[in-house]
């Protein structure tokens, strides 16, 4: 017994979703985390709380509000429709938007903590040597906080892989478009096909476990070295 073609499609879709989401999260999350690690304004704690909300809220709550926002009558859904001719709800793009919000804290928090431990005096030294902002980011901040970046990317990726509630609300169950692994798993269970459900559930479990072992192993070795 092996995976059905529909399961393979769901797996491929899930990997694509996790990859696209992680890339967007790193690009958006890094500057946001940098700002949060440096800012002393009161406004920053509001942003910090907003970023952390997905940790606390039931995914269905996030999904529900996103569904509302995706409606063509609302600003987000309306402008997306005008821009692309497509609706956000029940599409892959909609899933990406949902996943970015849902996994944001898993990327921002490790980065923020990494940046807080970064010695900012080094940046001044680089500045006096003529290194501009991007130069300092690429050659000092990234290499010196690479553990935070690795943690953020792996957690963001793994967390998006396991997403269910948000997807259910905003994506539905369209094979090849919005049917991700966790939804396919749900389908198998609904159909009392526990054999196939085991394949998907076990696969996700093994994958997540392997990813975390990789992550913690990496951090531990680096920790012992330095």
């Amino acid at each position, binding site marked *: 017994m092996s995976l059905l073609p529909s399961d393979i499609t769901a797996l491929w879709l899930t990997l694509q979703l996790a990859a696209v989401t992680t890339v967007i999260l790193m690009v958006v999350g890094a500057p946001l985390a940098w700002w949060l690690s440096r800012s002393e304004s009161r406004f920053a704690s509001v942003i910090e709380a907003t970023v952390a909300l997905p940790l606390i809220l039931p995914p269905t709550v996030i999904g529900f509000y996103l569904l509302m926002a995706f409606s063509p009558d609302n600003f987000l859904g309306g402008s997306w429709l005008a821009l692309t001719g497509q609706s956000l709800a029940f599409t892959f793009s909609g899933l990406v938007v949902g996943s970015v919000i849902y996994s944001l804290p898993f990327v921002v928090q490790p980065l923020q903590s990494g940046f807080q431990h970064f010695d900012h005096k080094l940046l001044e030294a680089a500045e*006096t040597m003529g290194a501009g902002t991007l130069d300092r980011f690429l050659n000092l901040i990234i290499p*010196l906080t690479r553990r935070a970046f690795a943690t953020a990317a792996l957690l963001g990726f793994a967390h998006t892989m396991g997403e269910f509630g948000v997807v259910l609300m905003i994506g539905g169950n369209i094979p090849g478009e919005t049917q991700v692994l966790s939804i396919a798993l749900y389908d198998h269970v609904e159909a009392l096909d526990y054999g196939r459900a085991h394949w998907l559930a076990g696969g996700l479990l093994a994958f997540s476990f392997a990813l975390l072992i990789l992550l913690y192993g990496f951090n531990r070795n680096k920790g012992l070295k330095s």
Partner: protein
Amino acid sequence: MGVENKIQLAVEHSLGRDAEFSLRLNVLLPGRGITAIYGPSGCGKTTLLRCMAGLEHAEHCRLTIGDIEIGGLPVTQRQLGYVFQENRLFPHLNVEENLDFAFKRRFSDNGPSKQQVIAWLDIENLLARKPNQLSGGQKQRVAIARALLTAPRCLLLDEPLAGVDSKARHPILRHLEALVDQLNIPMVYVSHNLDEISRLADHLIVMDQGRLIADGPLLEMLSRLDLDLTRQENAAVVLNAEVLNHDDHYSLTQLSLGSSLNSDGAASSVETQLVVGRLAAAPGNTVRVRIPCRDVSIALERPSQSSILNILSGVIVGIERVDGARAIVKADVQGQSVLARITRKSLEHLALETGKHVYLQIKTVALLSETLD
């Protein structure tokens, strides 16, 4: 030295919520050699240096080097080398990579080569090490090398020896001294250590509470009776002296405080000569010596039976009463100044006054540098 080579600096800057501390300063620095900025901690000397580099956003900053105004430029474009009190080496790079970081971003191709800088600071055998495998002194030598490799217009040093243990200071001072001859860029050296300053600096700026107290050539400044410098316990003057000859029998070297031998070949008078332990420098070279005020005593007649070799003859040009018990007497010897700290009792007993001819008995003469031109 023309005015066009000088560094013009005017800074206005406030710190703290209600401008608890303010920096207001307008000063002209020489365009070569080492200028020291001296003052008690908290006087704003580091802040001044940070304003020069642009690391501190001063409300007003005019900084002109040569005829280039850089006071309004961002840090990355000022082209100044900066050596921080804490070395700030990049921990993920080894020594050579730290040097390369600077060299790749150098401001001009007229600066020193990597090989030159590595040799000047004697760090050849450290290149493969990571910063955490270096001692404090080694780190600071690498930090100086790194700053030089950017080919800066001017090198700013913020108490580079503060975090270095006293044993490691000497070699760094030696390297810095030698650098002045190798480089044709000016250096600005912030320190609260008079010994370091006496050894290195050519020009001195004294600050207190964010204001300029006085500035001028080092030798002049160290003998100014109106400055706090001369009242300190370890106050000392610095003199330039010419090597006259060596006495191999007693392993001594004779120095002359006068400018040179007279044209008719007659040696300068014994009363303007100093004797120190045998030096390596050949006759004709100029050396810098340091004479602590507390090691100078005054006599009205030349003592004939004394173990003290160094007895100079001079004329009193100033007297300053320091506190209840003590006074500082400034005497001119061949155009250079020697200070003696004596008791007020002696001052009155000998009836010392300006214009009086005296003999200065000097217990210790410390050699500051053998190579000075």
